[in-house]
């Protein structure tokens, strides 16, 4: 079959950061094929795709579309050549309707006047053609993330793209939405479209792709058929060493309760109830996994526990002390550590250097300031210790952190939070957007903390992660605890049904039914 796309010897060097982002990279995609492009954060996947889409000019290399050499110097050239890109962060106008967003820039008009009717019709036809139902009149800001992504895909299809680049499309989706997206991708491939699927979740590669290209440190380290490879193999290629996909965990005896929430209720930013009457506790030497589809009150609950948001009712206890009214600083001084879900905006200040990021929760301690003055020497000594003990190779004391990759940024957050032996750790989506190597690190570290005797509240929308780490599983659904499971005996199915708002008894009756039928 003819190659829909061939990239040959692509090389790009960023002088400002001294990074060889792409080093003689080759890549081919056939029509009707799904190519997964995998690699750790900072391996050069995004640079390569930005070159293909005309956002970055390569130093050298050639691009062929359907066997013909093309010059792509601008996204317009890419679109002309049938290349479409769905960015990780959607580029939609929230206050516009679906149709307006899809048609933006190519509106059918009569003598300069817009025709919403015509627009809606075009979008409706497009959606029907690809079997991607959308409501053309809905406003983007009212749509769930999965729907917004569908709008992005339609936008690209309307511009007659034959090669679709999806940049980490699943990073922001719920498990259900991921499944739907996979179906869409397979269907597009069947219709003869080529899809380049950027991801670092290997399980998705196995599920959706025909072929996989692995990148590491700007180089193409492997091109394989998915049927010829497996997850451990891909992980090894990505990271360049053997990776534990599921970290080892010994059973240990848990201690006394370290944290307790009693009848806690919280409102969200709009004043609506986000958490209502939730009670649970976390013991020493225990990881409690809080599972649930995102948007079921996890963000609010974590913010209340860490002290960033006031609660409407209920009480919080840390080591039997009432901390309901304590502020963030008091809680942190009392031994609470917090790995937030948003490391770029909340967990770190990217505008300042490593040292100042590391002391945010402890600059008041006598070790780091005296008579109102910061003790620069002990701060940089502390930074060196954190860098060393958490092996954050890329970060240097006194230097800016804005250039670090996602994995290294998370290491900085984890290093800061887990230095100083906290007694209670809140870990909210601690591995979101991380590559396998970094996930391994975070998981290992959390288990070490548990073994040391800390209580850990692990909030995650990744069922895999909960199953791998937790000793006890709580499932959050619509702001309430839908059920509690012992991780040793719990199955993914049981957690799944609770996440969807069902009851364990539903599962049992289902099983009983199917049991009868099979007889």
């Amino acid at each position, binding site marked *: 079959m003819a190659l829909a796309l061939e990239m040959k010897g692509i090389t790009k*060097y960023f*002088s*400002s950061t*001294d990074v060889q982002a792409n080093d003689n990279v080759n890549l081919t995609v056939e029509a009707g094929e799904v190519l997964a492009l995998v690699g750790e954060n900072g391996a050069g996947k995004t640079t390569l795709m930005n070159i293909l889409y005309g956002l970055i000019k390569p130093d050298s290399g050639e691009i062929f579309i359907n066997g013909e050499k093309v010059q792509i110097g601008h996204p317009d050239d890419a679109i002309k050549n049938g290349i479409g890109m769905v960015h990780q962060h959607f580029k939609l106008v929230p206050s516009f309707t679906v149709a307006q967003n899809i048609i933006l820039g190519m509106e059918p008009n009569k003598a300069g006047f817009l025709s919403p009717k015509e627009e809606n019709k075009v979008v409706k036809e497009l959606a029907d053609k690809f079997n991607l139902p959308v409501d053309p009149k809905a406003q983007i800001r009212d749509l769930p993330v999965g729907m917004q992504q569908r709008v992005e895909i339609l936008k690209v299809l309307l511009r007659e793209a034959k090669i679709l680049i999806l940049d980490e499309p699943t990073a922001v989706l719920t498990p259900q939405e991921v499944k739907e997206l996979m179906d869409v991708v397979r269907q597009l491939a069947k219709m003869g479209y080529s899809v380049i699927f950027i991801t670092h979740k290997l399980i998705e590669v196995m599920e959706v792709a025909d072929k996989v290209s692995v990148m590491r440190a700007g180089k193409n380290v492997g091109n394989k058929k998915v049927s010829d490879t497996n997850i451990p193999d891909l992980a090894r290629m990505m990271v360049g060493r053997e990776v534990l996909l599921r970290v080892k965990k010994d059973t240990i005896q848990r201690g006394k309760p370290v944290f307790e929430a009693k009848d806690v209720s919280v409102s969200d930013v709009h004043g609506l109830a986000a958490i209502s009457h939730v009670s649970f506790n976390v013991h020493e030497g225990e990881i409690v996994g809080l599972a649930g589809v995102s948007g079921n009150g996890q963000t609010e609950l974590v913010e209340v526990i*860490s*002290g*960033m948001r006031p609660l409407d009712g209920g009480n919080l206890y840390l080591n039997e002390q009432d901390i309901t009214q304590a*502020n*963030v*600083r*008091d*809680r*942190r001084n009392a031994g609470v550590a*917090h790995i*937030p879900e*948003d490391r770029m*905006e*909340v*967990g*770190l*200040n*990217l*505008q*300042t250097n490593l040292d*100042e990021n590391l*002391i*945010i*929760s402890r*600059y*008041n301690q006598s070790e780091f*300031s005296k008579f*109102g*003055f*910061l003790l*620069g020497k002990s701060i940089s000594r502390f930074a060196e210790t954190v860098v060393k003990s958490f092996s954050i190779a890329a970060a240097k004391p*006194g*230097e800016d952190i804005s250039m670090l990759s996602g994995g290294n940024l998370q290491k900085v957050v984890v290093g800061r939070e887990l230095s100083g032996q906290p007694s209670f750790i809140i870990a909210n989506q601690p591995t979101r957007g991380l590559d396998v190597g970094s996930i391994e690190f975070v998981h290992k570290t959390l288990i070490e903390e548990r073994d040391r005797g800390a209580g850990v509240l692990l909030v995650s929308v990744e069922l895999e992660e909960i199953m791998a780490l937790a000793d006890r599983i709580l499932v959050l659904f619509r702001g309430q605890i839908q059920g509690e499971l012992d991780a040793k005996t719990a199955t993914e199915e049981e957690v799944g049904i609770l996440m969807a708002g069902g009851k364990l008894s539903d599962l049992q009756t289902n099983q009983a039914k199917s049991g009868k039928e099979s007889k």
Partner: protein
Amino acid sequence: MKNKKLQKILDAILIPVLAILSGLVLMGIMIALTGKPVWESYGVLFSKAFGCEKASNCAIVTTLERATPIILTGLSAVVAFRSGLFSIGQEGQYLMASIAAGWLGYNIHLPNGVHQSVILVACMAVGAAYGFIPGVLKVKLGVNELLSTIVLNSIATLIIEYMVQFPMRADVSTTAHSPIIDETAQLPIFMPGSKWGVGFIIAVVAVILVFIYLWKTKSGYEQRMAGQSKRFALYGGVPSDKAAIRAMIISGALAGLAGAVEVMGVHRRIMTGFSTGLGFDGVTAAILGQTHPFGVFIVAILFAGLKLGAQLGLQLKLGIPRELGATIIGFIILFVAASKFYEGAIDSVRSWFTKSKKVKAKGGGD
């Protein structure tokens, strides 16, 4: 390590320097359009700004005198901006403190040394109080500090006009002004023939203190973190509201100091039309100076020099309107705002350099 630091400093000053150069080139073009000699104008501009024709009559001395209040209002803006507050209330704070300085200068009588100190402290307090108002409004009621400081500036301009016209008016002359302040209230001057004096020393000390405060103290750290990322500060347990109010108080006190120095060291009284935009010059100096105390110091001097050179040199010597000086400053600000234009150029020059270096290194190896 040292190299990296040097690199950082070079990076920080590169864009302002390029902007100033572009502004000067544009000035040359405009002078050429008026038909005056271009090269001579540059010479006159610089000699009248930074030159030293006679030991007793140095232009640079006057430039430093004119730079003094701009340095202080610039520092005031730096403290506010670094704390995430876009306060442009320097003008108002400066004027309110000037009233206080003028009034205390002839209404209380204290020995030399004590009198000046009392006035300096009082003026800082007045400025701080006038800065506290938008700070509290922002923290307690969420009032945008940009809007509230604009309003407070107008109020202060009207108050000083009223004070000069009525309660503090000295005599019935055509232009209203207050009585000359006592000699014990005046700041000593270094060189006769100019007003360059202790005020400049105060400004230099303030530059150093503001630098230490912002980067070496706990309070400064809190303010910067809260200013750069509100969510991060909240997450880390930084008391952001306190930090914001503190920032506005310090910012006000620095602008107040500018008023004190200007009245005690230069004018010795307040008069009608006292508001000449020194507060806004400070805002500009803060932006051009990369919101850094040292940057403000350099830019304020350049600024004062350009103004003086345009006034004494271009206007008096060559008959070119002095407004041209202000125009150049306007252009320079525009060029800084358009810094993206330079970034692209700088980047391509850099990558060309590193490439040729790499090629050389490789060639040497073979």
